[in-house]
């Protein structure tokens, strides 16, 4: 990989992650979007698309909810795609390289958010004197920290780490190839399980098996199940609201959030790590 390609990919990864901060969290860092872009930079769009789609399934449940720090999907996708294109060992090898890269990438995200915690105190001092410009400087310093925390490690791995992994992969025999295939097939299970644990609710959980049974025994696609479920939920919701007695008057300004069911997931708010 050339210097220019590595630098370009590093900037793209950092911008995709920065979009979460200053672009309204548009999902630009998802592997399905980033894979094709990285593929295009390296001159192999097709591999980029396929690797991106495969990685999307692995990380489908990886969202910054409820105290979990999700693997850094942007760094993982970029390095996985780069390796798939560069090594010629296909999607499976890419998936296996992307997981450790994404896990290590999490560290840099933690680092950026921690550095910004120190910056906030400068904003406090500026606010006490109503210096809006100084607070703006803090905001953009924070954004710059986030940008560099993703760009630098991505660049270093792409520029200097790629050849080491490639030489490791060059000695593949039949059994190792089978091992890679199996690991790649198994990994999306983690994505689906994380999604499940995010949505977990004791009372509603059996609905997971409804969705599974419909898909396993029929030709329903995921979108078909989504439509079916949405329609059923709409009916159930209407029935509940019409059979209920007069709804209790809502408080004008509730000081506390809505009461939660005992069995519902704990409120994720205070620990959100977006």
């Amino acid at each position, binding site marked *: 990989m050339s210097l220019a390609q590595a630098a370009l990919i590093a900037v793209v990864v950092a911008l995709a992650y920065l979009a979460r901060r200053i672009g309204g969290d548009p999902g630009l860092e998802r592997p399905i979007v980033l894979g094709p872009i990285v593929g295009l930079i390296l001159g192999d769009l097709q591999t980029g698309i396929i690797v991106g789609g495969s990685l999307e399934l692995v990380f489908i449940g990886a969202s910054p909810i409820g105290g979990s720090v999700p693997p850094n999907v942007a760094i993982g996708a970029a390095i996985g795609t780069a390796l798939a294109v560069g090594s010629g060992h296909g999607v499976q090898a890419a998936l296996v390289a992307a997981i450790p890269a994404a896990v290590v990438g*999490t560290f840099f995200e933690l680092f950026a958010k921690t550095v*910004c915690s120190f910056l*906030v105190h400068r904003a406090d001092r500026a606010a006490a004197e109503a210096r809006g410009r100084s607070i703006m400087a803090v905001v953009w310093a924070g954004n710059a920290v986030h940008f560099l925390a993703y760009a630098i490690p991505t660049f270093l791995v792409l520029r200097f780490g790629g050849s080491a992994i490639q030489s490791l992969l060059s000695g593949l025999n039949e059994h190792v190839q089978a091992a890679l295939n199996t690991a790649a097939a198994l990994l999306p299970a983690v994505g689906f399980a994380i999604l499940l644990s995010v949505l977990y609710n004791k009372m509603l959980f059996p609905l997971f098996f409804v969705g599974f049974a419909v898909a396993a025994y029929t030709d329903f696609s995921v979108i078909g199940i989504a439509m079916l*479920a949405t329609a059923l939920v709409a009916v159930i919701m209407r029935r509940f609201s019409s059979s209920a007695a007069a709804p209790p008057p809502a408080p004008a300004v509730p000081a506390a959030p809505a009461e939660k069911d005992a069995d519902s997931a704990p409120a994720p708010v205070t620990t959100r790590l977006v």
Partner: protein
Amino acid sequence: MSDTKAPPASEPDTAETRREIRRLTFRGLLVQAGFNYERYQNLGFWWMMRPLLDKLYPGKAERAAAYQRHLVYFNTHPWLIGPIAGVTAVMERQRANRAENIDDETISSVKIGLMAPLAGIGDSLVFGTLRPILGAVCAAMAVTGNVAGALIFFFGLLAIQFGIRFWTTSAGYHTGVRFFDRISPETIDRIRRGATMVGLAVAGGLVATLLKVQTPWTYTNGHQKIKLQDQLDAVLPAMLPLAVTLLVFVLLRRRVSPVWVLLGTLVVGLVLGYFGVLG
């Protein structure tokens, strides 16, 4: 939940109102700017409110107080910042006009009261339902090499997001502090539950359709070679994907870190594949 009620008399004409809603909506895109572990989205929220605060409080002392008021801890779902932005803008305006019932305390408590339930809705609706559904459908396209998967995912998500942002900011602005009279905690909880139900069913569908865990094992019965996978399929199609997912799910429920689960699955997959147990 569209709103047709006229805004309070203290509000400016509709052209300026529209401009303000537009500005709040676009500035809301940066709500996570300078995200930090101490106060989360506080810098972004201040950034969003700043033009309004500068306009309402020309005096230095009042402006400093307003800045500090919006630099406290804040955290919600980034897509659903709209209602909070709208309500807060209206409250700040009324406070600047010396409305009796609005003080600093009220503004803070309404912000806190809104951010938790909206985060709950956003997490189950966006992260738990919309994005996984769109991601799975588009990934199924992408793994066959179709670039449409990536394009539909990105632009579809963008369109949904902007729809939600404009509509909710406007709704929050126009309902002002009466927001909770219209959207009660019960309604918010119902939306959250509905999204969770759809999300769970979809997760079940994902496991059955997109997880390709199989076993290559065969055994000999007399002269017949029998594939274990065919036997399993006869009992329950997609039995292995279901078993693997539930196993990982149980580990996560037992508070094993997702990072270790991910790495563990990688290693287990490599080992089982090497020895031909799964494949």
